[in-house]
Each structure stands twice: as structure tokens, then as C-alpha cells.
């Protein structure tokens, strides 16, 4: 469904990605792991058109996405839940959701979709008229996910959805991700919380300072790689020591 090949990206003089490749098939939940600064967000930004890569290709459903505008890529069916949630703080919860449905608004379907979101996130119905900025971190994350789902994405990309949330809220978010996966939503999940992400993922990639270090199933990864090392940025070499 999504094929990223040999992607290079930089911010001015800083090279953030050195030729990474990854693939997401329809119906899969793929985890993209790595420490802070590894290039995970950069990868997502390159896919959704916020950042123009220096080289490589991004193909989605057989179509080249490089050079397309973010609004055009959304229309192709890729929706991003950005890092830090990026809720419109001065807009009400209802207005945030309405913007989420901007590209595909039909009155009846919109009503139906709203009901579906309220079933998934009952708190949003209670807070419907409140400004997004007044929600708690976890509620904002739910709103960000609901907002992204309003466009009926074929591929949902989540950038560190558990970041900065309380343990119970992290549980809720991962339960939700599992629910979405079970309903057939294709998901590319970026996480630093490798352990939790691997529990729900079909396949996983590990990025390290702009290069792809590993790819495979969670089971393969766990045998190949000390999970703790993912947190600390090192890999287990032959001697069993974590190199940072």
C-alpha cells in the first residue's frame, strides 16, 4: 500500500534521513521505533508532504507522492496524527472534528461518523462545545485521533500517541489502537515506547540516527535486539553489551 524507498531528508545542513526504506501493506499495523532524534517524525513528515525529501520515492497505492501538497496527500487517503497532538486550541471539540472532515463532508455521513467517534471516545461528546485547549493531554490525543479518522483515511499514521500521557491513558490509547487495527484500519505507528508498540504491531522497523537498523516481526526483533537498547539508542552486539 505504502512503499518508501531510499528516502533522504534534511533540515538545512542537518541530514535527518540517510536513505531509508519501509513498506506498509493493507490491513497491517506497522511500528516505526527509534530513540529521540532518530528521524521517525521526519519520515512521517516526508510521507505526508510537510517536508520535501532530498531523494528517494514515496509511493502510495501506486501513485508517487513526492512533491504533492499535504492537502492533496490527505485526499489520497493518508491521515497523520501529529506529534504533540496539534489540537486547534481555540476551536471547540466539535469544530476540530469538523475540520477533520473537511475533505469529505457530506451531512448524513458526517452525523453518522460523529456518532461513531462518540462511541469510541465518549468523553468527546461530553466536551463537544469546549475549546480544544481546555482538554487534558489524553483527551487531546483522543480528539487528535478522532479528528484524523473523520477523513476516512486508508492509512492512519500516529506520531508518538502515548507521549506524555499517564499510564492509564497510555493503556487506553494502545487499547484503542488495537481496536482500530482489529477493525481493519491500516496503521503506521511511530513510538518510543517500543515494548507497548511491539505488542500490537504486525511488523516493526527500527530507525537509528537516520538509517534503518532492523525490520521484521516483533518476535524477530525481540530476539535480535535487546528491547532496553531501543530506549537507550544502542544495539546489542555479539558480546551482549549495549553500545550507545
Amino acid at each position: 500500500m505504502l512503499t518508501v524507498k531510499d528516502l533522504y531528508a534534511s533540515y538545512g545542513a542537518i541530514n535527518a534521513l540517510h536513505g531509508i526504506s519501509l513498506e506498509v501493506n493493507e490491513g497491517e499495523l506497522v511500528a516505526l521505533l527509534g530513540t529521540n532524534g532518530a528521524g521517525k517524525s521526519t519520515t512521517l513528515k516526508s510521507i505526508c508532504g510537510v517536508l520535501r525529501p532530498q531523494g528517494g520515492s514515496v509511493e502510495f497505492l501506486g501513485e508517487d507522492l513526492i512533491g504533492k501538497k499535504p492537502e492533496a496527500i490527505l485526499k489520497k487517503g493518508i491521515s497523520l496524527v501529529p506529534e504533540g497532538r496539534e489540537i486547534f486550541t481555540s476551536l471547540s471539540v466539535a469544530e476540530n472534528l469538523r475540520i477533520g472532515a473537511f475533505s469529505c463532508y457530506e451531512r448524513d455521513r458526517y452525523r453518522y461518523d460523529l456518532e461513531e467517534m462518540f462511541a469510541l471516545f465518549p468523553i468527546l461528546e461530553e466536551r463537544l462545545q469546549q475549546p480544544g485547549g481546555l482538554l487534558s493531554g489524553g483527551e487531546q490525543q483522543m480528539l487528535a485521533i478522532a479528528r484524523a479518522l473523520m477523513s476516512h483515511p486508508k492509512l492512519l499514521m500516529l506520531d508518538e500517541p502515548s507521549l506524555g500521557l499517564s499510564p492509564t491513558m497510555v493503556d487506553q490509547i494502545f487499547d484503542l489502537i488495537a481496536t482500530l487495527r482489529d477493525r481493519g484500519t491500516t496503521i503506521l505507528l511511530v513510538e518510543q515506547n517500543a515494548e507497548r508498540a511491539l505488542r500490537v504491531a504486525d511488523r516493526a522497523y527500527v530507525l537509528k540516527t537516520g538509517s534503518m537498523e532492523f525490520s521484521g516481526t516483533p518476535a524477530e526483533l525481540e530476539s535480535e535486539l535487546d528491547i532496553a537498547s531501543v530506549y537507550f539508542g544502542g544495539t546489542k552486539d555479539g558480546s551482549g553489551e549495549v553500545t550507545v
Partner: protein
Amino acid sequence: MIGSEFIINTLSLGSLYALIALGLVFVYGILKLVNFAYGEYLMVAGYTLYVLGTFTPIPWWLTMILAVALAAFVSYLTELIAFRPVRTKSLDAMLVTSFAVSVLLQNAALLFVSPRSRAVPFPPAFSESVTVFGATTPVRNILTIVTTVILLVALTLLMKYTVLGIAMRAAADKFTTTRLMGVPANLVISVAFILSGLLAGVVSIFWVGRSASVDPLIGFAPLLIAFIATVIGGMHSLQGAVVGGYVYGLLFNALSIMLPASLINYRDAFMFAIVILFLLLRPEGLIRGGYTEERVG
């Protein structure tokens, strides 16, 4: 009765200043660009009033509609031709571009019309006096207030209850995220410029109406007023611009009344002293607003 006259005059002046500031903030909110060419949209409407009113038999009401429409159109064109190509560069590039557009439009007026001011015909009814609540004031002032109220209500409805308005507010809050939701960047920016030009056009009718003349530099004073009003009210929300405009109008009229005759010539100095106080004591303005400082890239 001096009391009600003061109130009507202040409401009228404040309304005008509120519209002036609002037009500037519409573009600032989304692009974070202080558009120095804003005053020239007002000038474009002024010259339209002059040309159509002097050389054609077009009725005055149609002249006014055309003037407002042309200001909105020129504003839209400047975005399309001048600002859009440099939008992804730096904010500095945009600022310099807005200076260039401003100077270009001024010089066009100097060249094609005249450096001297031109008399603009207005229907006599515009400056006839009426008595409202015991206050005697030109019809123009009442029209300013009424027009402003209608525009503010219409814009509030637009921004609150239409998708376009919600998208504009979202874009002013977080531009890139708004695009990620499928809202076209060019759409919200074009609409912001059109609304900005439209407000400049409406302001022009009342601004030019006060002196009944137009000259190439007529845009400068309104631009300055917009700056001051936004310093007072805050640059980060539409409400701030409106509040700033009315507070500025009130301060201006209050100073005019309270200052002794010997100091009245220094009114602007007092005004700027107050503005500096605002900058020192409340740099974000009276209304803080929710807009972030994200740049459009």
C-alpha cells in the same frame, strides 16, 4: 448635549479604527505577515470612488460597491502575484515584498493620476447633520457605526458557523496542521486577503468621506492606526483588533477633549506615550488570543 455627542463620535471613530485594524489582522493571523500594502488597498478604493464618481454617470451606491470590490480584488491579486511566490521563503522576504507592493501601488497613483490630491464627489446626504439621542452629527458617522455593526455580525457568523470560517480560524491557530486536515493553503490565504481588501474598501468610503479627497499617500495614516490599534488590543485575535480599534478611538477623542488648548497640538505625542505604555505593560495587548506564532512554510 455634549455627552451623547462624545459617545456618538467616539463610537463612529472607534468603528472606523476597528475595521481598519481588523483588515490588517485577517492577513496577519494566518500568514504572520504585517502587510504594509494594506493602506494601498484603501487608496485603490479611494481612486475608484474618484474616477467613477467624477467621470462616469454610475450612481453613487454602485460606485461604492465597485470601489470595495476592486480593493478586495487588488488585495487578492497582490497575494497571487507578489506574496505567493515568496511565501515559502522567509518572513523577511514577505515583509520586503509588502513594502515593494506598497511603494509600487503608490507610484502607480502618482504616475497615472497625480501627486496632488483629487476631490472625491459624495452624495450631499452623506455629510448632512442628523440629531440622534440629542447628539448632532453628520449622517456619515451614523452610517459608519451601522455599517461596522453589520460587518462585525456578518464576519462573526462567517467565522463561527461556516466551514470556511472554521478553517480560517484553524489556519490562524496551526497552519500546517490545518493543511494536513485537507484544507488547501491557497484557499484560506486567498480568502484572508479578499476579506482584508474588502474591509480596506469599506473603510475607504468613510475615510475618504471625511476629507472628500484622495491622494497617493492616503494609505499611510490608516496603516499607522491599524498598528496602534493592534498594539492596544492585541495582534493575535480578531477580537483584539476590534477592541483595540474602539479603545484607540476612545483615547483619541478623550485626549482631544481633556487636553488644554495649549497642549492640543501635542495630542499625537500623548497618544504615542500611551501606546508605549501599552507595549511596556501589556505587550500582548488587551486580548491575548489563541494564535500561535507558527510561520507558514
